Each structure stands twice: as structure tokens, then as C-alpha cells.
């Protein structure tokens, strides 16, 4: 029996949230927004 869509989505977001690879670019993105704010 296949997993429900909701269950699959929850698994997917859990996998992303616990993946360090996600938080590195996310932190850099925040840093970039900060720099842009200082430059304008």
C-alpha cells in the first residue's frame, strides 16, 4: 500500500529540515539580504 500524500510530504519536509545541506545556503541567503540592506 502506498503512503498517503500528506504522509509523504511530512517525510519530505522532515528530511529537508534535518539536512545540514539545507541550512548552509539558507544562512548565506539571510547574510546576503543583510548585506543588501546595508548597501542600499
Amino acid at each position, binding site marked *: 500500500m502506498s503512503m498517503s500524500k500528506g504522509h509523504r510530504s511530512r517525510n*519530505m519536509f522532515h*528530511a*529537508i529540515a534535518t539536512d545540514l*545541506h*539545507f541550512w548552509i*545556503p539558507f544562512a548565506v541567503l539571510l547574510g*546576503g539580504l543583510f548585506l*543588501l540592506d546595508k*548597501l*542600499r
Partner: protein
Amino acid sequence: MPATRLRTLQALGIFCGFAAGAWLGGAEAPIKLVNPDISPITVSLIMVFGVFLARWSVPAFVRGTSHVRNDVRQAPHLIVWAVLAGCMWAVANTLTIYAIRNVGLSIAFPLWNTNSLLGIFWGFLLFNELHYAGWKRWLGVLGGAVCMFGGATLLAIASAHQATPGKATLGVLAALGAGILWGTMYIPYRKAYLTGMNPLSFITFFTVGEIVTMTGLAVSYRGATPLWHELVGAKSVMFWLMLGGFVWVIGDLFQQYATKYVGISRGIPLSNTNQLWGLLWGIFVFHELRGGGQTLYAQVAGGSLLMALGAVAIALSSATAREHASWQDAADREGQRYGVEGEYVRAGMEGRATPSAEIQGRGLPADPNARTLLDWLLILVTTGLFATLAVMARLPHIDIALGWAIALTMAMLALLATCAAALWRTTRFR
């Protein structure tokens, strides 16, 4: 993967990297045609409109959007990664506008191209790139990286002569910030391609992040009403900016294929040969550095050459079969974490069709390369919009060398044709 196939894909990735360099380099040229009175944020927003149109219409033209649906079914998590990368691209692109304004095209380019150093670092640390590569390849990559850093430093020193007084530091900061964002943006790229996604699918979601971020930035920085007035006032230059965005997308697409087939530690330095193309456009077409002393020319030319030599050294250190096997380990890890079918991941890495998808035809039309009504609509709307904007466009009174501009454009088109043909023959744009 058979050794001959691996060699073919490596050569293809390297070729894509060089084609990317030409198109990414040419993309910044139209910005120089724009009146400096327009806010950089608005300039960036208009460019992103062009980028958005290109990122949907080019995949529709090349393979049709049915393939995008299939990729999303196989690896839905990559939508999140693509959107994140798109957000980063938008912020980095806005920073480059500040950089170009403050230190000039020929200086800003090499500075943000230090993103390749970061790409090598992330590739090694997170995706097993350069593992079991042997000392010669390590020397090529590290030696190349040191060369590129030296070249960037030389150009940063030259910026003190070229930039408006007091603006050099801001320009250098903006360019380096863009480099860090772009260097880190390759993490999502590599995640996607290790898991087998097609670059043409990745960019369609990537651009959602771009346009949402850019619109949010523009509205919050400028205010909705002033922004609207500025957009209306900019209609005579809108074509040039959107053209810049369109050209950028073609370069970025080649860069994505390079990243897919040779990894980020090699793909990024190769596409960073855009710095040489930027230099050619800046010096020959826009007469940048005119009136500068011999020392300035020596610094800029020497710095650029050093960076290019570094990139070539890295490019020549292509992956061995053993290193490629360690990429496969990273791909398996990704597949397991996100529950992606092993066959889909392997087929993606090898640039071949996924039997389960194409034989069973999951949502794909009978002819996998057939276009749907949506595809033709996307192509038609984009073409119509660009044609309308071209009619409204005005060429600003700026001293440009038209002969050089035509020559460089022809060279870019020749690279586009040959590289696209190679991609089609080898992978059918997979």
C-alpha cells in the same frame, strides 16, 4: 557506468562550462546600456522578469514541459531546493548591480567569480568531489584556486583606480557578497543533479524563488507606487534589461549541465571564464579603462589572465573513475534520504532515459519530445513580449563599438549551436 561514457560526459561537461562562460559574460553587457538613474533594485527586478520568461520558455522549446512533471513526481523535494537556490540568485544578482555601478564590469566580474573557490570547498566537503582524485588532480584544483585568488586580488587593487572615489569599498563588498551567495547556491544545484533531476526541470522552479524574492525586495525597498512609476518610466530600456536576463539564463543552463556532468568543483571555475568575456565586452565594446595608465591595464589584464589560467588548471583535472564512484556514493545517500528510485538517480547521472518513466509513459506524451499546447503558449507569449519591448526600446547615447559587439555576439551564437548539438547527441538534453 562504462569508461567511454564517463569520458564522453566529462568532455561534454567541460564544453558546457566554456559555453556557459561566454553567455554569462555577455549577459551583463546590456546593463551598461541602461541609464544609471534607474535604481539597481528596479534594474534587477526587470532582469528577473526576462529571466523568468526564459526559464519557462527555453525548457518548453528544448524538451517540452511534460518532462518537468515527470521529474517532480520522481523527486518532489527538489522543488524546495530549487526555490531556495532561486532566492539566492536574486539577492546575488542585485548585489552585482551595485558592484557594476561602483567598480565597473571588468573589475566586478572577477571578484564575484571567487565563488568557484567556495564551490570547490562545498563540492569536496558535501558531495565527495575530489575524493580519491590523486595528488596531480588535487594540485591542479588547488593550484588553480590559488591562481584565481591571486588574480582576483590584483583586480581588487586595480579597482581603487577605476571606481568612483569612496565607492570602491562598497563595490568590492557587493561583488564578494554575490560571489559567496553564488558559490553556496551550487549546493542545491549539486543536490538536484546527484538525484537525477534534469537541469531544464530544475530551472523552472528555481525561477519561482527568483521572481518572488526580487519582487519582495523591490516592493519593500522602493514602495509599490514609486516602483510602478519607475517601471513605467523604464519602458524604453526594459528590452535591454530583459535581454540581459534571457542571455544569462542560456549561460546558466549550460552551467547547470556542466555542474551535472563534471561537478561543482570543476563546473564553476569553467563557467567563470565569463570573466574573460566580460573583459572583452567591457574593454572593446564599452571602452572601459580608456584613459587608464599602463599600470592599470597591466593589473587588469594580468589579474584576468591569472584567473583564467587557474580555471584551466582546474578544468584539466577531470574526475577519474574512482572519484566518480565516490560521487555515486553521495548520490545513493541523497536517494535514500529523500526516497528517490535508484534507477532514476543512476539514469540521471549517466544522462540517459529512465526506462520506468519513458517506457511506461508516466504522464509523458506518446512522443517524449512532443510539445503540448502549454509549451507553444509559453514560447508564443515570450516571443511576443520581447518583440513588443524591442519596438519600444531606445538605444541610449553611449559610445559603443558596434563591430566588436557583433563579433562577440556571433562567437556566442557559434558556441551555443555547437554545445547544444553536443548535448542533444549525447544526452538528448537530459
